[in-house]
Structures are given as C-alpha cells and as structure tokens.
C-alpha cells in the first residue's frame, strides 16, 4: 500500500515541482487507471495487462489536460490554477459516473487476484506484493530517468528556475507537458495496480487524491525522495492505525500526522526551505 502511495505521490510531486501547479485531478487519473485495470481484467485479459494500458492511457490523459487546460491556467494566478484543476477533477469524476454508473465494482478473476502465500506465519497477498514490486520498480526507473538522462536534467532545470532554463534553450512548455504525461502515467499505473485489491467506483479518486496531497506535502513539494519516504510512512501509519485503533479513523491519523509534522517543519520532511 505504501509503495502505491509513493508512486502516486511521485506523479503529483513531479507535476508540482516542474509545472508548479497543484493538481486536484490527480486522484481522478488514478480512478481512470483503476477502471482500465478493471475493464481489461474483466473483459479482455489478465489485470496485469491492464498496467501498461493504464500507463499509456493515464499519460495520454495527463498530456491532454496540459495541452487543453493547464497551459492556459499557468498564465493566471495560483487561485485560478486551484479551481481550474478542481473543475477538471469534477469533469473526470462525473464523466466516469456517466460512463460506468455509480456502482462499486471489484475484480474477481486474474492470475494474482485473491491469491495468497502463507510462509513462516506471515500472510502475504500476492496482488499487493506484485503491486509493491511494480511500484518500486517504476519509481526507481523514473528516478534514474530524471537523475541520469539529458531530458531528466532539463526537467530538473525547469523545476529549479523556469526562466533560466528557458534562456538555456530548454523548451519549458515541452518539459511541463512531459511532467504532466509522467504524472498521469504513474497515477494510471498506481490505479491499475490498486484495482487488483480495491473496489472501483467513480468517487474513489477523492479518497486517494486527498491522501496523495498529504503525502506530497508531507515529503515536501517537489522532492522525489521525500515523496517515496512519505508514501511509505503514510502506508504504514494507516495500516497500524487500522490494526490497533478504530479502522474508521485510520485516515484521520494521517491528517493529524501531517499537521504535527508541518507545525514543526513547515517545508515538509525533505522539502527545500521556502524563503
């Protein structure tokens, strides 16, 4: 669970760090990814095949949102960006409602769905294990891409200083589009992975969207290692809280944790100090 949160937070933090915008619709990309996983798993093949499909679809969706909406929003004040992406969120959510109806759905078939291994007293859900492995793998891949390749360096330069990057001949517009594509793609994958052990419904994005926000802010906006660590922490806290206190309140613990941490460290765990 924590690894999936990390992956989600990664997408959002890339979008935030590079395009400098808070994306309310991030949870809805996840929801679309979950529907992709669900539909592929139910009607076509195994849900695992849904993962690359969701990557492509999510990436495409992120790209479209950037080209048609976000590029315009970036010219306006931050407040307009907030409610522009909020409109996008509503649009995607109710679009899914109109297409798929309000029912909660869950996957029943698939190689890994509902399979467990029981070893040395530890009970492991294979679908969750696979999700964690794929999430960590993708995370590492994107981290390497950003750190090692030329395009990655250009991305980081854009995140550091937009104007300077622009003068160096980097097309910041293309970099923003790339960031949105990666963000949408990773959220799509996270969704496809989640669909193997979590119910799918049009409003599921809301729950995860808020958790993702908290995770990103907890790790520090724009910090990739921060997103990873915060994702793991959030996953663990949620499981522990559900185990040892009231399961209904498990999300409240995450919010309280965020509140406590930013009270002490206003820039998040690994965020850069804001001047």
């Amino acid at each position, binding site marked *: 669970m924590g690894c999936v949160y990390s992956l989600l937070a990664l997408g959002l933090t890339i979008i*935030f760090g590079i395009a400098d915008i*808070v994306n309310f619709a991030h949870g809805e990309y996840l929801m679309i990814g979950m529907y992709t996983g669900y539909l592929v798993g139910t009607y076509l093949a195994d849900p695992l095949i849904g993962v690359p499909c969701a990557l492509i679809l999510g990436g495409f969706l992120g790209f479209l949102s950037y080209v048609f*909406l976000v590029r*315009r*929003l970036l*010219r*306006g*004040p*931050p*407040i*307009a*960006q*907030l*409610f*522009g992406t*909020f*409109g*996008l*969120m*509503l*649009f995607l*959510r*109710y*679009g*899914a*409602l*109109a297409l798929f*109806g*309000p029912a909660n759905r869950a996957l029943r078939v698939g190689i890994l769905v509902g399979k467990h291994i029981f070893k040395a007293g530890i009970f492991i859900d294979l679908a969750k294990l696979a999700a964690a492995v794929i999430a960590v793998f993708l995370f590492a891949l994107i981290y390497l891409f950003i750190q090692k390749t030329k395009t990655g360096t250009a991305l980081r330069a854009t995140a550091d200083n937009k104007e300077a990057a622009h003068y160096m001949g980097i097309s910041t517009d293309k970099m923003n589009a790339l960031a949105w594509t990666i963000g949408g793609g990773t959220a799509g994958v996270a969704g496809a992975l989640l669909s193997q052990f979590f119910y799918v419904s*049009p409003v599921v994005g*809301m729950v995860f969207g*808020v958790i993702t*926000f*908290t995770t990103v*802010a907890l790790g520090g*906006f724009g910090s990739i290692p921060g997103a990873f660590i915060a994702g793991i922490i959030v996953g663990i806290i949620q499981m522990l809280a559900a185990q040892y206190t*009231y399961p*209904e*309140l498990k*999300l*409240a613990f995450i*919010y*309280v944790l*965020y*509140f406590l941490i*930013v*009270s002490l460290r*206003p*820039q*998040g765990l690994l965020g850069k100090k*804001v001047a």
Partner: protein
Amino acid sequence: MIGKIFLKLFGTMKEAVSFEDLPRSERIVFSLFVLFLVIFPWIVKSGFARAVIVQFLLYAMYGISWNFIGGYGGQVDLGGAKNVGFGAYAVALMMVWWGTPFWISVFVGIIIAVAESFVLGFPLLRLRGHYFAIGTLCVALVWQELFTFWNWTGGARGILLPIKRPPNLLYMQLDPIGYHYFILFLFLLSLFWLNWFRKSKLGYELRAIKANEDAAASLGINVLWAKVKAYCISAAVAALGGAFYAVYFLYIDPFCVMHLDLSIMIAMTAMLGGAGSIWGPIIGALILIPLDRYLGASLGGKGVLGVDFLIYASIIMLVAAYQPKGVWGIVETLRKRKRKGLYVARS
C-alpha cells in the same frame, strides 16, 4: 466612558452599512438586487425557486466568510466546512439534548468555531502557500472523520431536529417566507461585516500580506496575528451559516455540513465570482447554486447520471482558463478598457 464606546460602536456600524466609496453604478445595482430579494417571496410562488434563493443566500454567506481570509488575505482555506459543521452541530445537539433555543445555541456554535480556529490558527497560519491549503484540508478532514465516527454526534446517520408546531421564533422554525427573510437578514449582516472589514485597518493589513508577506512584516504588521484575526472572523460567519442550515433543513449529517466537498464548494463560490472583492462571493453563488439546482432537477431525474456535473465542471474550467480573476475580473477589465478609451479621446 460608556458614551465613548457607544460612539465608537456607532462609527463602526456606520462604516459597515456605507458603500460610499464604491462607484455609483455598483451601488444602484446592489440596491436593486436587495429590493428584488425583499419582494421576491411575494412575486414568486414556486416552492422550488424559493428554496433555490434561500440556498443561494446561504452559499453567498459561506463565500463571504471565505473571502475574509482567502480573498483579502490570499490564504487559500480549504477547510471552511468545519466551521459550518460546528455551527450546525451546536444548534442541533443542544436542541436535541436540552431543548436550548436557537438564540443561545447559535452563539455557542460561533464561540466553538472561533475558539477552534484561534487555537489551530497559530500553527496553521504559519504555513505558507500550498502547505497552508493542505493543512486546512487535513484539519477539516479530521473533524469530518471524527463527527462521522462519534456516536454522540449521531455518526454517519446524522441528527433529525425535533419539529416544533406551530412555527416559532424561539427555535427559529419558520414558514418559507420567514426563512427567506431570516437568511436575507443573516446574509446582509455578513455582507456588512465584510464591508466594514474591507475598509478597516485589518483589511488593509491582510491585503498587504496577500501582496507580499515579508514586506508586510517589515512594515511593522504583526502578520500572524492579523491572519489569525481574519481566520476567526471567517469562522464566525461560516458558523452562523451552519446554524441556519440546521434550522432550515432540520436534518444534518457529516456529509452535508462537514464534508470536503462543501469546503471546496465554499472556496469555489468566492473564487468563481472573484476573490478579494466584495461582490465576488455573491456573483459566484448566483451562478453556481441556481445552475447546480436547476441542472440537477432537469437532467438528474432522467437517468442521465452526472451530466449536470459535466456542464458545471466545464463552466468552472472555462472561467479558470479564460478569466482567472473570476467573473468580477471581467467587469473590472471592461471598466479599465472604458477608462483607457476616455483617456485616449481626451488626449
């Protein structure tokens, strides 16, 4: 001494109801609008239209509450619903437990909301930008989860308020026309409060903070204290709206008075109309609420789920993309253009 306090109070009230500094056209439109609202229940008999107007006024009030901290202060508060919830729950619970009249419980609700905002305001308002927005979101969500979880608040089932017959003023259970005038009164009260705030020292301090927090601090403004004060005023107005919600609908649950969607709706109302202007929240609510209700009523019943929200979302996106300052921004741009035209003509 008492005379002095009285004079000062009188001066404040005079400031609050005076719109002298605004252009005459705005004052005329506003007067006509209020006149329309006053005679509305006598010319329109449709129960649905009356209900829509009451909700419009309620949301305009929420938007006004957001404008104190979000519009003028530039602090994007995404947790407005918690204050609405405190107001509504105080009225509902005290009536169910002890039969407390509305006029006492509404003040209890406001005091609780203000106290909570005061205590949590200090750590929250130290945060900047997105960290603050998400902090308020988290605080409101914790309350939402707690009020859903606790048994004494009715949990997810909510609370039904006992119905008093005949309608009476003690519990503010009125007939539709009575509700209309009651919410109109509360709406004007909060609008006057915002009008006073706009011209007060605190209002100017907050605008300075919005423009540049560090510069404001270097000018000797106690930034944190000013923000906390505005945050508390915002909480009081929202709690007042919540109290009305409880006596109007006579049923509350965490989904309608504490929910994240409400928090965002509150911010949306003010931002769509134009954050940081006195008419912004009213325009925002005037667009959003009738649109939402009429679209919901005309399309929602035909088995086409979600289409009303698709239209609604498209409008929000269009405004955000083409006029980021909200609808009021359009009016201001037009006015500037006109002025420029005059200037050119003269020279």
